[in-house]
Structure formats: structure tokens, C-alpha cells
């Protein structure tokens, strides 16, 4: 069963998030999804480990809450349950997913169409599913376009390169000014 991203987004637009889910409820919703697929969900200790791995400025709980919302408000849960394979490890899958979505805040996922799509596609990728009407290569290319984590690194690199260039030009101007002063020599 393929994930219909367009339809999921439409369902989500019809069911906006009114108030945040409590964390325990969000965890229960995600665990239930694994149970639906006859998979053992992460244990309480596994969830503690997942939380400890969070390096995204305390965004992990927001991401858990948004995943729970998407699973309950749309067909994502049913499609996920149908896609998960019996030999999958829920904890490893979640670890991979939360690493991939690390810089995404709940606000971004809620209000920004690109970050919502990225969040959904990364979930599809984590559960090794397919996007409806897309070849795997197309899905991979789209995921690459959307990847906010890589984009942040790219923006940071561009910013540093620009600062270095500004510094280099400033240095060159100073050196040129110094050379001009020395060439003039000392005059009263």
C-alpha cells in the first residue's frame, strides 16, 4: 500500500491541530501503530534512550507530538501499519526517523507546507514505504530537495564563505592602503 501524500495533506488541512497532545498520549499513539502491524513497540526504556539521543535543541517531544497528530488525523496510521514488515525493529526505525527530522519544529511542520511534506516523506522513508504515483528515484530526489538539515548546513557554509571573502577584501584594502602610505614616505 502506497502513501498518498496529497491526500494526507488534505486530510490534515481538514483536521487542524487544536491543542498539543500530552507526551504520554503521543507515545501511546505511536506504540499503537506498531502494535497494529504486529510489531513490538519500543519499551519505556527505549523511549528514554530515544529522548536522550535528542540533540535538536529540545525539539524531540514536539516531533513526537506532531507524528502522533499525523497518525491520528490522517490515513498515515493505517498505511504505516500496512507497510511495516515483521522483521523491522521499531526503536531503530524511530531512531533513524528522529535523526532525519532533527531541526524541524512543531510550528514548521504545522504551518509550513514544505516542512510538513518533508516530515511525511521522511516517515515514509523510515518505514521503507513508497509514495503513490512516484518512482523510488523521484521520491529520493524530492526528499533531497526538501532536506532542511542539509540545507541548514549549506546556508551555514555559504555564510562562512561570504564572511571569509569580506574579510579577505578588507585585508587587501588595508594592505593596499599600507603600501600606498609607505610609497609616499615620510613628509612633514
Amino acid at each position, binding site marked *: 500500500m502506497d502513501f498518498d501524500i496529497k491526500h494526507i495533506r488534505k486530510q490534515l488541512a481538514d483536521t487542524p491541530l487544536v491543542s498539543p497532545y500530552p507526551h504520554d498520549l503521543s507515545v501511546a499513539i505511536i506504540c499503537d501503530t506498531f502494535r497494529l502491524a504486529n510489531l513490538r513497540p519500543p519499551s519505556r526504556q527505549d523511549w528514554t534512550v530515544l529522548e536522550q539521543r535528542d540533540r535538536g535543541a529540545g525539539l524531540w517531544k514536539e516531533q513526537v507530538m506532531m507524528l502522533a497528530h499525523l497518525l491520528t488525523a490522517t490515513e498515515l496510521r493505517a498505511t504505516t501499519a500496512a507497510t511495516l514488515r515483521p522483521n523491522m525493529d521499531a526503536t531503530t526505525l524511530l531512531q533513524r526517523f528522529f535523526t532525519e527530522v532533527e531541526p524541524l519544529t512543531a510550528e514548521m511542520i504545522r504551518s*509550513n507546507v514544505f516542512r510538513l511534506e518533508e516530515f511525511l516523506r521522511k516517515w515514509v522513508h523510515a518505514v521503507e514505504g513508497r509514495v503513490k504515483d512516484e518512482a523510488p528515484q523521484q521520491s529520493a530526489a524530492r526528499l533531497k530537495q526538501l532536506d532542511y538539515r542539509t540545507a541548514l548546513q549549506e546556508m551555514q557554509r555559504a555564510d562562512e564563505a561570504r564572511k571569509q571573502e569580506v574579510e579577505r577584501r578588507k585585508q587587501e584594502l588595508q594592505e593596499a592602503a599600507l603600501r600606498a602610505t609607505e610609497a609616499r614616505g615620510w613628509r612633514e
Partner: protein
Amino acid sequence: MDARVAPRANIRRDTASQRPHVPWAESIAAGLSRLAAVPREDEARALLDARLEWLRGALLASPYYVRRLQQVGLHPGDLQSLQDLRHFPTLERTGLALHWGEVSALPSEDEGCVVVRSSGSTGEPVRVVRDRRDCLHMWAVLRFWLERAEVALPPRPRVVLLDALPGGLEYSVRLPILQDGALHRVSVLRGDARERLRRVSPTVVFSDPEGLRWWAEQDGLPVPGLVLSSAQHLSEALRERLARVLPVPVLNYYATTETGPLAWECFRSTGHFHVLAPDVWLEPDQDEVVVTRLRPSVLPLLRYRPADAGTVRRDACACGFQGWTLEGFGGRGACGFTTPTGRSVDAWALAWVFKHHALRAFRLTQLAPTHFELELVDATEPGPLRERLTGALRNLGWSDAPRLDVRAVSGDSLVTGTKPLPFRTRIPREGNHT
């Protein structure tokens, strides 16, 4: 004439540096022609989408956009098609005025960039970074317009910038970018303007409604091939008068200092401004102009709002143009001041006098033919402004200095809506804001 009212002008005379850009100018004109002949919208959009690759790179090179996009969880790679634009933040004039140095990318060292200041005639003055191609873009677009008007350029064509501004600035420079031609700025305020025009015999004349009104009153002037007017209010009466005395196409165009030329009014259908895609994209179905620059430049403009009203729609025009057309364009609030002799002059010809004042910080009202009131938010030391304004009015037709009352007011009292209306008249006349 009082030339003291003219601002200091820096005339760029390194015209030889235009020559390497001739192939680029030809490609710009060819690109405009090509897109204006694409009948299918999806095909045209695909051509425009292909230009977003440059924009993505330019956004990444702009410190302002990198910061702004990060604030809202976006990145340049999200912009894959024109459809995606609506999810991106807009840039207001005030934002550009505030962050002008950061919006532009770091210019390459041999680019020869300049910083120009908008006249402030549609809001607060904005400083704009321009690279060499930005400075030459109008000449590239002129090639396209000449083709649309079916005007063939002679070798070494002469172009005249006919100026009715109160400063009376004049100069002549070579114009290698346009078939080794020459550009002459001629002021209608100078006594020898007619003589110079006869001597120059221009193929192309750039002016504004005030300059064209002057032209229409003269006898024995040479007939150019094409006349262009910047999209200030060009009244029906003036159009008819020009049609009688100047049997050549008059092209009314819409441009801003920040964006360059954006659209041109159809020769056949008044009020329909054809968008200059693929150089710019004006978002359809909005109530105001929202511009994204698709032509490589040191200054990327993403969803820039120049604060002009208008709605863009896809159009297959009777003139043969296929593309997007701006309708209901409402740039500046038209206002004509009446001289003591009863002649009407465009009040916006005074806009540059207030270059250092935000439009919402002043209002000039004509109360009687020789009586004006200037309301200023910051009225401290208005002496130099008063002198400059009186000189400008003298050049426009008030040979005896009119009475000018300067009044200090609060900023709120001048706000009349979203669009600033800094010029008003109490003398009733068609098309005026009173």
C-alpha cells in the same frame, strides 16, 4: 532658470564597458520576444521555472534572505516552481530600505556595482545595489520594444532623454550598447532645447507626460521612431494631442528603481500593461504588484512589493502578445498643479525635491494658483527645502515665487490610506486627488 535646484549628478562615462554586454542585451531581447510568442501557459511557466535555479543560488548568497528564510523554516531549495512562491515571505519597500546592503549578494570584484537611490516618488527613498547589467537592462529591453513597435534602428542611433524636471540637468554620452549610438539628455527648461533636438534628430525619445506635453506644443521638431513615457499618469487628452502631432508609437512603461522595467502598455489596448517575462515574474490574481526577479543580478528580489496596485492575468492580446498582463495599474495618485497661466503640470515632477523625506512625512497642497501649503512631519529647519521647492516651482512655470506656507503636523494626520498621496490640489480638475 534656476539650476541650483538640481541635485548633484554622477554621470557614468566609462561607456566602453558597455560593449562586452552587447550579446547579453541581444539575448535579453530575444528571450522577451520568445516568451511573448508562447501561446500555452504551461509551456511558458516551464520556461520560467527553469530560471529559478539562478534565483535559488542568489538567495543562498544573500545574507538577508538566508536569515529571513531560516526564520520561517524555508530554504532556497524549496523554490522549485512559480507555484511555490506563494509560500515564501514578501519583501516590502521599507524592508528593502532597511536591509538594502544585506539583500544583495557580495558583488564580484570586477562587477563595477553602483548604489542608486530611488527618487522616493512611491514611498520612502530606497538604496539599491546594481551591477553593470542592471544598469544596462533598460537598453536591452528597448531592443525588444523597438521590435514590437516595428522600428528599425539606423546605424549609430541617437536617443534623447527629454527631461522636464526642475533641475535642468543635461549631458551627452556614447551608447555602445545600442548599435554604437549616443544618449543626449535634453532639458525642456533650457532655451536651446528645440535647437538641440533638431541637431540630434533622435530615433528614440524617453520622457514623461510633462516632457511630452512640451514636445506636443513645439513646431518643427524632428519625428523620432519611438517615444517612451514612464508610467506616470498619461491623460487621454495628452495621448490624443500626441497622436495628432507625433505620428509614432508612444510606449508607456512601468518601471521602478528597485526592479527595473516591469511591464509596458499595449499599443492597442490602453490600461493593459504586458509583463516583461522572463526577466521578471509578477504574481497573477493579486490586488497589488508582487515582483520576483528571474534575471541574474547582484540583487535578488523575491516577492518584492513596490506598493503599486494592479492585477495580473494570463492574456492573449489582440496585439499578438501572449503572456501575462497587468490591469488596473494604480501607481502614483495623479495630481496636476495649475500654474498662474492656467496650465496644468504634473505634481510628481516635484517628487525628487523631497528625496530625503519619506512621502508619509510631507504633503504639498495647492490651495490657489499662487498659494501652496507644505505639511511636514519634521519641520525643523525647513529653510533649504523651502528654497529648493520655490526654485523648482519657478522652473515649472511659477515665474514669481508662489506663497508657500510650511506647517508642522503629526505623522498620523498625513496618512490617507495604504498608498501615500503627498501631492494634492484644491483647484478642481479632472483626474486630480483633492
